[in-house]
């Protein structure tokens, strides 16, 4: 079965190499994501390696850095789209604990809580304590900074941050940049990074070698997914311009509660599923609110993203998987 898949993919890759990257070809490839294929992006061309179902993930052996992205847990939400978001977050933790390569840490790309209430943050912290991953890093969603301009969010999740809660850190030679684009939103506008944060990004990466893999994570997508619904960041272009020198930039976002991917030169953009409820595809509904699916299908539209960096590859492999 795996051999058949490889043959099919080999053919597709041949076509891609002939055509270069075209959207349809890339989307066809992306349809395989979540079915047990690892895609890495090397030099702008997606390269796949099939890995066998089950425990023998030979591709992952020798993997240098493994972490997991979760997003949009919306603790406190209790409407029909998902009356028990704590249970689905627990299912996400169970999924994380079942990964063949235990992730070193988790990245939560925001909307941790639904209403910024202390008991909601507490509840998430409690559930995440059960994950094998030792550490967790967060960025806020707009639901995490309600009524107090993000003060309680920062006290809990961004103690050593600057400004509205941005910070950076390094893991095994990969440089992680945590950005906040959900503060000071203007009427009719999109996500915003702001001048102070942009200046900080510029300084933060100034002395890094261009061979350093970069991972940027922020809540609202840093590319224009669907501006009509506010799914974009008005000044993200400027932030990305400071990262032009780097050979590998991976952008991880949340907010839209569905997987979307885009490759632009050396930058791979990826948005994750929510662990709470799905939202409609761009323009497929009147508004981007919670989307109801039959109860037995809920877990199939929620999920996590497993991210692996293999030294020498200089690019990161992102594998999305659903909760059920």
């Amino acid at each position: 079965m795996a051999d058949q898949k490889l043959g099919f993919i080999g053919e597709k890759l041949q076509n891609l190499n002939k055509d270069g990257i075209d959207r349809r070809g890339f989307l066809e490839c992306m349809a395989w994501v979540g079915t047990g294929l690892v895609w890495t992006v090397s030099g702008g061309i997606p390269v796949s390696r099939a890995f066998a179902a089950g425990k023998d993930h030979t591709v992952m052996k020798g993997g240098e850095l493994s972490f997991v992205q979760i997003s949009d847990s919306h603790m406190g939400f209790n409407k029909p789209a998902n009356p028990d978001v704590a249970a689905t977050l627990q299912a996400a933790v169970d999924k994380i604990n079942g990964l063949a390569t235990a992730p070193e840490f988790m990245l939560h790309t925001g909307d941790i809580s639904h209403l910024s209430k202390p008991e909601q943050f507490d509840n998430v912290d409690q559930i995440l304590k059960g994950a094998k991953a030792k550490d967790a890093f967060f960025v806020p969603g707009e639901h995490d900074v309600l009524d107090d301009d993000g003060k309680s969010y920062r006290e809990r999740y961004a103690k050593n941050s600057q400004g509205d809660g941005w910070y950076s850190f390094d893991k095994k030679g990969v440089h992680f940049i945590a950005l906040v684009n959900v503060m000071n939103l203007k009427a009719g506008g999109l996500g915003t990074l702001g001048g102070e944060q942009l200046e900080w990004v510029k300084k933060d990466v100034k002395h890094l070698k261009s061979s350093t893999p970069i991972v940027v994570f922020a809540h609202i997508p840093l590319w224009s997914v669907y501006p009509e619904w506010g799914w974009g960041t008005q000044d993200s272009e400027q932030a990305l311009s400071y990262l032009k020198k780097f050979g590998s930039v991976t952008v991880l976002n949340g907010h839209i509660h569905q997987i979307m991917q885009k490759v632009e030169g050396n930058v791979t953009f990826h948005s994750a599923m929510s662990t709470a409820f799905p939202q409609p595809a761009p323009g497929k509904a009147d508004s981007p609110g919670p989307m109801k699916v039959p109860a037995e299908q809920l877990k199939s539209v929620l999920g996590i993203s497993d991210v692996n960096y293999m030294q020498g590859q200089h690019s990161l492999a992102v594998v999305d998987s659903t909760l059920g």
Partner: protein
Amino acid sequence: MKTKARWTVVALPMIAVLLLAGSARLRAADQPAGAEVKIDNFSFGPQTITVPVGATVTWTNRDDIPHTVVSTDGVFKSKVRDTDEKFSYTFTKAGTYSYFCSIHPKMTGKVVVQ
């Protein structure tokens, strides 16, 4: 004597109630009527509302997601309103008041006070 007393016991309170009701109606007539804005499907309905000076506008969130009501000029700002929660503001000065939801900034509305 007894009958006279009973009559006043019944009649006086009735008269008092009628007088109070009458004056309450008079007070209500002096006040401009309240106006309602419904928040649903990531939008304010009606998007533009026109009210007289002194009117109170009440926003009710009927959406399944929380929203806020925030004036673009800093005139009023609600706390987060979850489903079925309300926010009211009384407009004492004429003018045009643009507002939006600070959580979902694409949601905008206007109150015209004249």
